[in-house]
């Protein structure tokens, strides 16, 4: 029984005073007309007979009072707007919500929680509750919701589709699934941009409000949704699973070690869920060869970290918890160490000894391959094709700009990108850098304040640009994002056309550091490329420049052995269906371009504790609640009952049936 208060407090007080008033009125004696009779002997005996013979005499004597109090009570109850949850009549609509997130792979209910949920849904809703006229739809949800079956009364099809639900390794988010169910039950809440699509991409028509009952089969591994509105949707929660323990790798990362380019540090955070103490052997594999192991003991639920030093050599670094807990899929996490990748740099200059020297140091050659070109070469078709097809990571231009923007990041000294050539520039003599963004990675360890600059051409950067250093006259160094790429503009040249220095920056320590930062960031140069695991559902993205123009079809070899194509979206290749944990290998023909490890890395999913209830909107949804009911307001019934009581009271008063 649910109640909604319809009266203010003072109105309740007034209502409460009414029955008291009625009772007080009954204490007043009824004024009776005196009537002389010959004797009261027989009257007394008659009344005594009645008193003795009639059962419930008190009730009969006070039947009017009781009826009046009942009337007031019914009205007060009606003001409370009571409602009952009861089984709806006519065609009923059921929404079966099945959680197929990673935590549902837990084996505490053999073979898995998902299988148990599917069986329970078929048994309870399809076989149990549905009549021939009733309709049901099936929605699975992890962090995304998918309508597995639209409203249908075909039980056979529903059973088949429920059985076909597969396990995903994504995290849990009930919100979208709930929105679909609520939108079908309350179409007025559906916005036009909020249309729900079924599995084939067609919008699910929500033409009329269909009060529906949703049964949620989940282990409750999702946060409460206090701001959700259920409306006509009656939600019942069926927790799946038992309380069980689990240990998980919740973070895996690979870090370079400063000053030791030959070694990387594999760092992992382990989480334990469960009250019993447990010792977990942690093993580290490099290309399936165990290279390190540790024992980690958990005496209570919580997190511990573990770190290994590994030689920075290409291969698959895999961390494994050698434990047989209820959720195996979070016991593995891998990272891929690949060959150090050198940045492909094109230096376009008519001759600049400072730049050439700075780009030919040992440090730079270790991380970058620098090719030099004259400005005139930019006009040649060969170089233009290379620039247009993303052959370079970074193009450094000295006092010149390419005729069109290349498919690469650019660093321009004393020039502006070709699309900004028409922007008027302001010649400034001896500008002083008064502000610089030391937090930007390009200016890491770079101090620009003592620079002396003879002259600069200050151009107003376009909107969205990020100013790294500015003088009083305007920005001197700024970044301009351009799609997948970034243009970095330095407003002053290092040398003038006569070869004389314009600034003392090249002789300061900050200049090579700035160039190294630029090569690492804009040239994407890495000493050791460690691809850390991504979470299930995170798309794999590859810039088209990395793949090469010739490739027109890339395949992903997924952990379950199938090959699926990548989709080209503009300047990148994307694969979004990273549903399962494991290693995804991006193949161009027979050549492996990149291997991407996917690991669960989610504390909430690894926490396989089963929740007995959840809060959705204003309602506390308990596991024991009866499903398949709709809210039925009782106040019209109560008002009708009050009217009936009033009529009965009137009738009795007139008939004087009671003494």
């Amino acid at each position, binding site marked *: 029984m649910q109640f909604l208060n319809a009266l203010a407090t003072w109105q309740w007080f007034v209502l409460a005073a009414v029955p008291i008033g009625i009772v007080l009125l009954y204490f007043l004696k*009824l*004024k*009776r*007309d*005196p*009537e*002389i*009779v*010959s*004797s*009261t*002997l*027989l*009257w*007394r*005996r*008659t*009344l005594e*007979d*009645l008193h003795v013979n009639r059962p419930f005499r008190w009730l009969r004597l006070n039947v009017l009072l009781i009826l009046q109090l009942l009337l007031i009570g019914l009205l007060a109850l009606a003001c409370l707007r009571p409602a009952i949850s009861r089984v709806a009549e006519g065609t009923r609509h059921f929404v079966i919500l099945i959680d197929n997130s990673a935590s549902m792979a837990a084996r505490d209910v053999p073979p898995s929680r998902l299988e148990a949920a599917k069986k329970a849904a078929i048994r309870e809703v399809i076989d149990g509750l549905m009549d021939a006229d009733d309709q049901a739809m099936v929605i699975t949800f992890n962090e995304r919701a998918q309508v597995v079956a639209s409203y249908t009364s075909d039980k056979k099809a529903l059973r088949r589709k429920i059985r076909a639900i597969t396990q995903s390794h994504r995290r849990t988010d009930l919100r979208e699934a709930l929105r679909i169910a609520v939108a079908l039950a309350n179409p007025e809440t559906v916005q036009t941009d909020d249309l729900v699509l079924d599995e084939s991409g067609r919008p699910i028509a929500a033409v009329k409000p269909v009060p529906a009952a949703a049964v949620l089969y989940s282990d409750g591994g999702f946060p409460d949704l206090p701001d959700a509105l259920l409306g006509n949707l009656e939600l019942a929660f069926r927790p799946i699973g038992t309380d069980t323990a689990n240990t998980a790798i919740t973070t895996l990362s690979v870090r370079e070690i400063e000053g030791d380019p030959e070694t990387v540090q594999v760092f992992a955070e382990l989480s334990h869920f469960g009250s019993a103490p447990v010792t977990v052997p942690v093993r580290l594999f490099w290309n399936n060869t165990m290279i390190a192991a540790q024992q980690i003991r958990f005496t209570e639920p919580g997190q511990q970290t573990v770190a290994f030093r590994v030689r920075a050599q290409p291969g698959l670094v895999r961390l494994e918890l050698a434990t047989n807990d209820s959720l195996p899929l979070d016991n593995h996490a891998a990272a891929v160490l690949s060959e150090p990748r050198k940045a492909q740099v094109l230096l376009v200059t008519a001759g600049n000894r400072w730049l050439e020297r700075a780009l030919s140091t040992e440090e730079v050659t270790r991380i970058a391959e620098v090719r030099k070109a004259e400005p005139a070469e930019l006009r040649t078709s060969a170089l233009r094709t290379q620039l247009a097809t993303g052959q370079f990571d970074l193009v450094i231009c000295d006092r010149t700009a390419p005729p069109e923007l290349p498919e690469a990041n650019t660093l321009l000294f004393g020039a502006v990108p070709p699309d900004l050539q028409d922007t008027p520039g302001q010649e400034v003599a001896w500008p002083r850098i008064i502000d610089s963004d030391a937090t930007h990675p390009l200016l890491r360890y770079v101090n620009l304040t003592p620079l002396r600059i003879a002259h600069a051409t200050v151009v107003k950067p376009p909107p969205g640009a990020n100013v790294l250093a500015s003088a009083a006259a305007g920005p001197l160094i700024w970044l301009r994002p351009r799609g997948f790429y970034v243009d970095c503009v330095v407003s002053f040249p290092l040398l003038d056309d006569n070869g004389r220095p314009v600034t003392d920056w090249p002789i300061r320590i900050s200049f090579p550091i700035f160039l190294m930062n630029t090569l690492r960031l804009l040239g994407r140069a890495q000493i050791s490329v460690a691809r850390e695991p991504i979470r299930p559902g995170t798309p794999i993205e590859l810039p088209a420049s990395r793949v090469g123009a010739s490739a027109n079809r890339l395949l992903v070899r997924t952990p379950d052995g199938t090959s699926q194509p990548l989709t080209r979206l503009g300047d990148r290749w994307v694969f979004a269906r990273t549903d399962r944990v494991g290693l995804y290998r991006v193949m161009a023909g027979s050549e492996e371009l990149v291997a991407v490890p996917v690991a669960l890395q989610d504390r909430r999913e690894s926490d396989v504790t089963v929740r007995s209830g959840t809060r959705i909107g204003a309602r506390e949804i308990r596991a024991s609640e009866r499903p398949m009911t709709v809210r039925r307001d009782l106040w019209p019934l109560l008002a009708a009952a009050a009217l009936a009581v009033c009529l009965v009271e009137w009738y009795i008063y007139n*008939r*004087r*049936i*009671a*003494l």
Partner: protein
Amino acid sequence: MSSEATTTRQETHDPHGLLSPEFLRTLERLELVSRRILIGRLKGERRSRRKGQSVEFADYRDYVPGDDLRFLDWNVYGRLDRLFLKLFVEEEDLHFHVLLDVSESMGYGAPAKLRTACQFAAALAFVGLIGQDRVAVHAITDGVVAGTGGLRGRRSVFRLLEFLQGLRAQAPGNLNLALRRFAAAHRTPGIVLVLTDFLDKHGYESGLRYLLATGMDVHVVQVLAWEELDPPLRGDLKLVDIEDGDEVEVSVSAPLLEHYRRRVRAFCRAIEQWCVARGISYLLATTTMDPEKLVLEHFRKVGLLR
């Protein structure tokens, strides 16, 4: 006797309207009969169970000293040489008492119950007077509050009627007490006619027992008003007892009235059964009934009138 009746025929009409002249003429042909032979004070027209001085021989008994020698049967003495006393059936007059309840409840009803009771009293007393019986009418409440004293003969009819007309319902009654007091004061057997409504919270049984104990031939007429049998009451009422002021609050409903009517019938039937079981004749008279018809039919049937 017949000549006296003829001469007084003109006098015996009821100027107060209690009895119609035709009824009086009918009554003149009747006489009171006791179911028992009763002892009266004077020698009257009745056979008495007391052996006494009359011409009708009844029995012999042994002589005991002190007996009147005039009644010795000398013939038997001559034959048997034993003294026997001759006993004769004594002819005596009949004592007829009318006990008329004049408690306040008898004033209830339209017409009042008291008037109906007076009609009965007048009719039967008239028969008694005509028959030369000794008639006494006593108005009782919780004792005898008024009485005619002993009346006899047609000449007393007017006095009787005047007395009856002068009666008014008065103080609260106590039938038991009144009958007991009457029984204590009147030890002579006779006929007693009790006219009451029996609506007395003290009951009636012990009083009637006292009367029976005197050996009297008891007749009872219960007089009820039609308003008591079928009360014309509606609504929420406070019923006030006319005698003791007792109040009863009722909300009159059809079921209540039905129950009351059943109660009244049961009450009357209980009195009747009690009386019949003890040889008392019982008559229920209501104010709507014709008293003349009742007198002629009922009292002839029970043998009081002949």
